[in-house]
């Protein structure tokens, strides 16, 4: 019995070391919850800006999100468009900083360097699809295809997560799959971009974060 326990322990050690040396396992579930909350707050602000602009005429949210023609360009360059960009920028920055903060706290608890080789590898693999997607989406805005921006965000971000899943907790892959699916569905409902956006970046992240926190972090409290 004793030698069995010893062998089991050794195997568990080996597995742990393989994981620790190849994956960045400090990604905190709370990071997901924080990022999701930021996204929901951002979406709420965006909606109020869009609704506020809608009062002056029939320019509803669906028109802003759904116009494939160039009618929207003037609007986007206007005050409202700038506000939306500002909101998007602040939301992204806040989500990123908060996500980093919780992950930093967790990694220092685990004694893993937050900016080690594993973290760098993860960042690069997530950043690559995101940057390519971001540039592509900027070109879409230039072309005035606003209806595809929300689905584009979801799809590229989902792809980035699936790509990064090899280098961190593997479950993030499923979040990626759902985001890609949501983004693809959104392509056929361009008028509801903000709702899909809020569901994908907000609700799904919070759900994912809670699940992951439950699974990995609650025990260690």
């Amino acid at each position, binding site marked *: *019995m004793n*030698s*069995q326990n010893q*062998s*089991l322990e*050794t*195997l568990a*050690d*080996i*597995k742990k*070391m*393989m994981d*620790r*040396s*190849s994956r960045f396992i400090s990604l905190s579930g709370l990071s997901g919850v924080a990022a999701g909350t930021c996204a929901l707050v951002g979406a709420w602000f965006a909606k109020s800006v869009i609704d506020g602009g809608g009062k002056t005429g029939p320019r509803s949210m669906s028109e802003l999100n759904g116009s494939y023609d160039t009618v929207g360009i003037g609007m986007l360059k206007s005050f409202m468009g700038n506000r939306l960009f500002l909101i998007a920028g602040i939301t992204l920055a806040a989500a990123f900083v908060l996500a980093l903060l919780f992950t930093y706290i967790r990694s220092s608890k685990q*004694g*893993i*360097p937050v900016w*080690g*080789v594993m973290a760098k590898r993860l960042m690069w693999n997530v950043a690559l699809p995101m940057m390519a997607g971001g540039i592509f989406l900027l070109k879409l805005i230039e072309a005035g295809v606003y209806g595809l921006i929300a689905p584009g965000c979801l799809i590229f971000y989902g792809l980035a997560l699936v790509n990064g899943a090899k280098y961190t907790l593997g479950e993030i892959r499923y979040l990626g799959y759902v985001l890609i699916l949501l983004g693809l569905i959104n392509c056929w409902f361009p008028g509801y971009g903000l709702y899909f956006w809020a569901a994908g970046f907000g609700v799904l992240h919070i759900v994912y974060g809670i699940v992951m926190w439950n699974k990995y972090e609650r025990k260690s409290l």
Partner: protein
Amino acid sequence: MKNPIEQLQKVFDSRVRLGIMSALMVNDEVSFNELKELIQVTDGNLASHLKALEENGFVKVNKGFVGRKTNTTYSVTKAGEKAFRLHIDALEQMIKQVGK
């Protein structure tokens, strides 16, 4: 049936060496400092275990430079990979046999 204990490699009979081998199995190459952080041992301790693995032909040393600083990385050899797999299989066998 053969006794699986005979298959256990004496060389891997240490937490540090198991740690080194596990890390090298899943990474192309790992630097000395990364290994130190992962396994959390002192420089001297890690160096002597690495030396032992190297002398057995299980680990390959690659000396390089990052700027002017030396950067020594380690990778697993074919023989090392094979030996480590045998070792893990033997461990598994032992668990199964006792479990029966």
